[in-house]
């Protein structure tokens, strides 16, 4: 609104009004009413997620939200491990430093079931806060399930539902060697042996969050993390299947990995594939979609995608869901909900998909033509592959291990075990037996009943 002593030129007023109107269209019920007072004028919202493609887009579009609601938004997006540590610390003490947080998939059960987040059902049902066509049921049921607590209430609205897929950045080398895209774990080793170090391209790398990237192989060999999550939490990390899987996977890194493979973070992996320095990896579309970006990807013409390899026990692609939630200690819950509602409205998610975002959680987006078109990279249909994987995961339920509140501690043990084997410090058997012993100690310390 204009200040009496500082008349704003007509044009600027028009633009402001247009922006507010535009953003207001995304926030029905908040559009200027009652004399034009903005609903959350003077409120400062603190939002934090880890740095990823969708939050990056949101950060670009923030001014529209701010213009429509009058709120000021501080959007903090550090790296994944830093974010998780800070969020966990803040939530555990029910602090009010953040109003909107990312509900990270491996922590979702821990945070939700300790009562550190606010249930969102009332906000969703309230017609004054959420327009009718926002449609919570448009979000995949498989994506909403991890965000639901044991009490049946929803604590987070998913912004990404992604599955682990295998990508080859230099598929031309595979074809030159006369081989096809690897389907089984044995195939993978054969292909890697044939293409490793050809044209100075290393064979395989994976982001060193092995509690995420290794588990599909653990399952493929017939092993599992717990005996029967979430009821029987006795860990099964020292079974012969688990050890075999660990040895296989660590060997991939040792034999075919680039220098320093075990220090690779997700962004380094994406970068390495974009530049064509490494050939194969397993990653979610959140990252793989970037390989189709003509501006930065040098391998856009030689890239190919497929499902994660099948092992003796079957194919078990990992899936992950991240959502936006409201901490229990937040002092601006209504404003926080307005933000979440705007960030995940059909218009905003549709806009993201049109901008090339690769792993939406709304069925309407996944089935939209825009999305399917954008996700066909060099002949591989990323969208189809990830949907297949997500449906597979929903059927077999092999992601239940992640819904356990004590998973973060086990996650760390898996990371260390693979690191130890790949760096040659311990044999697979020793590393996994150590992981098993440490996990039991951690579970006991966390009060889990074994």
């Amino acid at each position, binding site marked *: 609104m204009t200040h009496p002593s500082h008349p704003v030129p007509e044009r600027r007023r028009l633009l402001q009004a247009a922006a507010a109107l535009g953003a207001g269209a995304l926030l029905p019920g908040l559009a200027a009413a009652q004399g034009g007072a903005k609903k959350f004028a003077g409120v400062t919202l603190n939002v934090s997620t880890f740095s990823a493609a969708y939050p990056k887009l949101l950060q670009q579009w923030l001014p529209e939200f701010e213009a429509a609601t009058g709120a000021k938004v501080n959007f903090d997006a550090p790296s994944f491990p830093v974010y998780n540590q800070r969020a966990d610390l803040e939530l555990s003490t029910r602090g009010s430093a953040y109003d909107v947080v990312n509900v990270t998939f491996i922590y979702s059960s821990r945070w939700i079931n*300790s009562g550190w987040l606010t249930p969102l059902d009332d906000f969703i049902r309230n017609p004054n806060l959420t327009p009718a066509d926002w449609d919570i049921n448009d979000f995949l049921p498989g994506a909403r399930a991890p965000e639901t607590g044991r009490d049946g209430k929803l604590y987070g609205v998913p912004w990404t539902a992604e599955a682990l897929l295998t990508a080859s950045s230099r598929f031309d080398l595979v074809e030159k060697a006369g081989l096809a895209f690897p389907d089984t774990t044995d195939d993978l080793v054969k292909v890697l042996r044939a293409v490793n170090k050809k044209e100075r391209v290393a064979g395989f790398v994976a982001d060193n969050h092995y509690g995420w990237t290794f588990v599909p192989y653990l399952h493929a060999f017939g092993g599992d993390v717990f005996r029967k999550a979430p009821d029987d939490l006795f860990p099964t990390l020292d079974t012969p299947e688990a050890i075999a899987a660990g040895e296989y996977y660590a060997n991939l890194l040792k034999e075919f990995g680039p*220098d*320093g493979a075990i220090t690779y973070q997700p962004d380094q992996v994406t970068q390495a594939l974009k530049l064509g320095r490494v050939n194969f990896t397993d990653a979610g579309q959140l990252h793989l979609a970037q390989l189709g970006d003509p501006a930065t990807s040098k391998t856009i013409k030689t890239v190919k995608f497929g499902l994660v390899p099948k092992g003796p026990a079957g194919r078990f692609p990992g899936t992950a869901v991240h959502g936006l939630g409201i901490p229990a200690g937040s002092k601006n819950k209504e404003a926080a909900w307005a933000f979440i509602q705007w960030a995940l409205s059909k218009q905003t998610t549709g806009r993201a998909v049109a901008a090339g975002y690769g792993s939406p959680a709304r069925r309407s987006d996944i089935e939209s033509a825009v999305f399917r078109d954008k996700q066909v990279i060099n002949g591989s249909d990323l969208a189809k592959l990830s949907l297949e994987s997500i449906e597979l995961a929903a059927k077999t339920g092999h992601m239940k291990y992640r819904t356990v509140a004590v998973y973060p501690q086990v996650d760390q043990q898996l990371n260390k075990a693979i690191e130890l084997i790949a760096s*040659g410090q*311990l044999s697979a058997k020793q590393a996994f037996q150590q992981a098993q012993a440490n996990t039991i100690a951690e579970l006991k310390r*966390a009060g889990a009943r074994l």
Partner: protein
Amino acid sequence: MAHALSADGWQAERRRAFLLGLSPSLAVLLLITLVPAAALVIASFTPLSLTDPAATFRFDDPLVNYRQLLHDDRFLHSIAVQLKLSASSVLLQLGVGLGLALLLNGKSRLLDGARTAFLIPMVLPPIVVALIWKIMYTPDVSPIHRALEAAGWPLRSLIADPDTALWAISLADTWQWFPFTMLMVLASLQMIPDEPIEAATLEGANRWQLLRHIVFPYIRPVLVVCGLFRLIDSFKAFPLIYVLTNGGPGSVTEVTNYYGFIQAFNFSYWGYASAIATVLLAGVFALSWAVGKLGWSDHDKR
């Protein structure tokens, strides 16, 4: 101000005035050091974990954390790593600092400037030092790696290799702290009296003999104090590990301070982490006492 009426009254007034000046400091120090330390020790007697604070703040088994510590391989390993890191980096720092001090102990504008320039690593914010060495140790951007590769001796990533990761951190730590020893030895070198040196020179002693028989015995106490000081400070090592290796690969560079950090701030096991911190604090206390004794008694000797 009031004129003193009697010597006693004046003394008492003085004492009161001093007490007035001293008490805010004592009160503040008490509040921000002793009280938290006490809270720490108390918390270490509980299995306090923030996933369920009410249930876990109990004293039924006060030594539970300490018992677990004794059986915790990761903790015991972290102590071994800490000792390895401290020993290697302190010895290297002493060596490099001593060498540079001997080299720079002279009178010229170049040496004067050099003495100031060599201070830089020590006063940089530790996080900046960590970033500098992150760049040095990342093969993609490191000038060292690229130069070696161009010369035909390609070097694999030092921080990803369990055999070299700890040495890499030790090297970075030495680079950061050698100026400390250098400063202290330089100050001490300037206090060596002239007469023994001149007498020995007249008798035909060469430089090496001078160093061995006059200089070293003189600066040895300073080296010892320096070493102990750096030893205690080395227990605080954090930014280097946080940025360079995260305690890895595996647990090769996971020192006790870092392990405590993970337990407290990654998993909110505050009771357990308090126990770890208490153990660290006890160690620091013992070593500080030793330093204090040596520092004080040394002065009395002179």
